[in-house]
């Protein structure tokens, strides 16, 4: 009978999920909700999973938390919001995790974070950058610098170096992040007294931007601000140069455009491209150097910003556990996380502001000789 078979399958599946390691008194379970399958989200998710697990292993080895042992429990949501909510419910009510790191996508965060917030389980995101995520509730934090935290620094640098009077903006209209980035860019430009002479948009999957760039060229701006992901930005920069927009017209990009792909696809056209970030691989601090080494040794490839932000999230949590004197009181633990001040992380000194947004030194990076380097 189909029915009996289905029941048996269900029982088997439940047994498997229950067979997860039994918790010892000194175990602190960390829920890690990152997409490791399901399209491009998996790229970011895998990096964050690795970064978080590496941090947990390092903290356990260091003995910093005494007899408390961090036990990461990773669950893959495949970038699907429904699954994220399923996982949150199970992690909170069945696995009884102390904290959740994730989820990978902002849309998942909007759906799942309220559940954790109501259950008083802190959530520390390391890739959600759209506005409004920590505003979900008192227990929601993030280490991923939103565009608003990094772009003003980039613009200030550009103003100092190039004294631009006019700017053009081009951004992805159907992407949550890019639409938000556009608003941030516009506000910063207005504040700096730079006139926006052209505003153009594109859609996900576009590959030809010549119509928009021709209009921008006609407006002859001093700088061009792009709200796009790495691939889109690379195509825009390359096609702009092909259309004859001179190298002296500097491009400023969104945080999400930071990727080695940008250089691979745009080549010399992207020389001088400016972007702001919370982290970059050559960031010269002992903590970061050790992190990059350890990451390469463990996973065989170089970490990216998301891995670093996830590593920082676990570091922050461990520090808060120490200051709160354990994990038995969720309110105390939450307060300790919120009180994080100038903590040394791979991102540099890290604090949370009163809205649970990250406060860190924004690094202005310039694409020079095929590599993102600290702008001088």
């Amino acid at each position, binding site marked *: 009978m189909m029915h009996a078979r289905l029941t048996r399958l269900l029982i088997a599946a439940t047994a498997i999920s229950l067979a997860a390691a039994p918790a010892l008194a000194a175990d602190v379970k960390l829920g890690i909700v990152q997409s*490791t399958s399901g399209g491009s989200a998996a790229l970011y998710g895998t990096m964050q999973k690795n970064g978080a697990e590496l941090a947990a292993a390092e903290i356990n080895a260091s003995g910093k938390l005494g007899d408390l042992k961090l036990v990461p429990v990773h669950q893959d949501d495949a970038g699907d*919001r*429904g*699954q994220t909510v*399923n996982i949150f*419910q199970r992690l909170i*009510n069945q696995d009884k995790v102390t904290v959740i790191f994730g989820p990978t996508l902002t849309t998942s965060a909007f*759906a799942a974070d309220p559940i954790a917030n109501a259950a008083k389980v802190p959530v520390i995101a390391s890739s959600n950058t759209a506005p*409004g995520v920590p505003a979900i509730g008192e227990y929601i934090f993030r280490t991923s610098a939103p565009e608003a935290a990094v772009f003003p620094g980039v613009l200030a640098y550009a103003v100092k170096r190039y004294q631009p009077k006019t700017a053009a903006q081009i951004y992805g209209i159907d992407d949550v992040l890019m*639409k938000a980035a556009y608003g941030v860019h516009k506000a910063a430009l207005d504040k700096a007294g730079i006139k926006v002479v052209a505003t153009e948009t594109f859609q996900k999957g576009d590959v030809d931007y010549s119509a928009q760039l021709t209009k921008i060229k006609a407006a002859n701006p001093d700088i061009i601000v792009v709200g796009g992901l790495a691939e889109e930005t690379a195509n825009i920069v390359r096609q702009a140069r092909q259309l004859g927009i001179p190298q002296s017209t500097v491009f400023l990009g969104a945080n999400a455009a930071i990727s080695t792909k940008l250089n691979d696809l745009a080549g010399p056209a992207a020389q001088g491209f400016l972007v702001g970030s919370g982290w970059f691989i050559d960031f010269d601090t002992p903590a970061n150097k050790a992190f990059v080494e350890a990451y390469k040794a463990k996973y065989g490839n170089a970490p990216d910003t998301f891995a670093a932000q996830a590593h920082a999230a676990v570091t922050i949590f461990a520090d808060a556990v120490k200051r709160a004197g354990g994990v038995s009181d969720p309110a105390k633990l939450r307060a300790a996380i919120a009180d994080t001040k100038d903590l040394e992380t791979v991102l540099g000194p890290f604090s949370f502001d009163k809205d649970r947004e990250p406060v860190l030194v924004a690094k202005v990076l310039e694409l020079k000789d095929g590599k993102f380097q600290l702008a001088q």
Partner: protein
Amino acid sequence: MMAALDAFLASYGNLVNLCLLNTLLAYGVWLALAANMFTLGTGGFMAVGAYCSVYLTMQLGAPFAVAVVAGGLLAAAVALVIGAPVLRLRGDYFMLATFAFTEVVRVIALNWDAVTGGAIGIYGIPRYTETWQLVLLVLIALYFVFALRRSYFGRSIAAIRQDDVMSEAMGVNVFGQRLSLFVASGFVSGGVGGLAAHLNFFVGPSDFGLLRSVDALAYPILGGVNALLGPLVGAIFTTLLPELLRFSSQWREILMGLLILTVVLFLPGGAMSLLSWRPRKAAARRPSTQGAE
């Protein structure tokens, strides 16, 4: 007993809700499939219902039940307007036209910031959808479909599914019946959209695209269009699958694809045809009843 149920729902409540919600959606799509309308408009109708009901509850403070019904009615009205021209198309063209509708709704949702929140979507939606409401609605849907299949109307739909030219010749108003089914399907999908929007605090344009329409179409087809419980089985199977295969981590998507492929290949009448499965010899002697009751 109650305590055990509470503990179960605390951990698996969302999964149960998703199963129920998708079951409702599957019956909505079934209404269209019953008369051979392979609709990809489900995502579009869901979006119309979702945004409408969220607007009503959040901006105008309307009661939840009113908002969901209004969302369904608006989706039904839209189905009526697009159904009239689109239903003159057949097969592939009908599918393409309904797909185009879903895309148009998605693009409107992306750009009409005041109502839909644009690309970011709407978050902080109050949670009104409860499990008991969904259970009740699924029971109502089941009874409705059960009654429909036995009615005169149901027999004429079955005739249309077999051969619409013949049915027309026999005096069945094929266009009228298809239109009313399409509108009913729109109503159910719109209502489900409203329920879904008030379940997980958030709606965004990417929730109701082509993928949603294809998923919804797969539920009744996988479960079996000809059996009363087909859509229910298909919806629950497809919703549980990713969770049941969670242990396989990286293999999960491959296994899911393989399982679905297996059902499609070996059970072309849907999973419910397992119940009427007979050894090959007997089946070969029987006249083919593929697609019949």
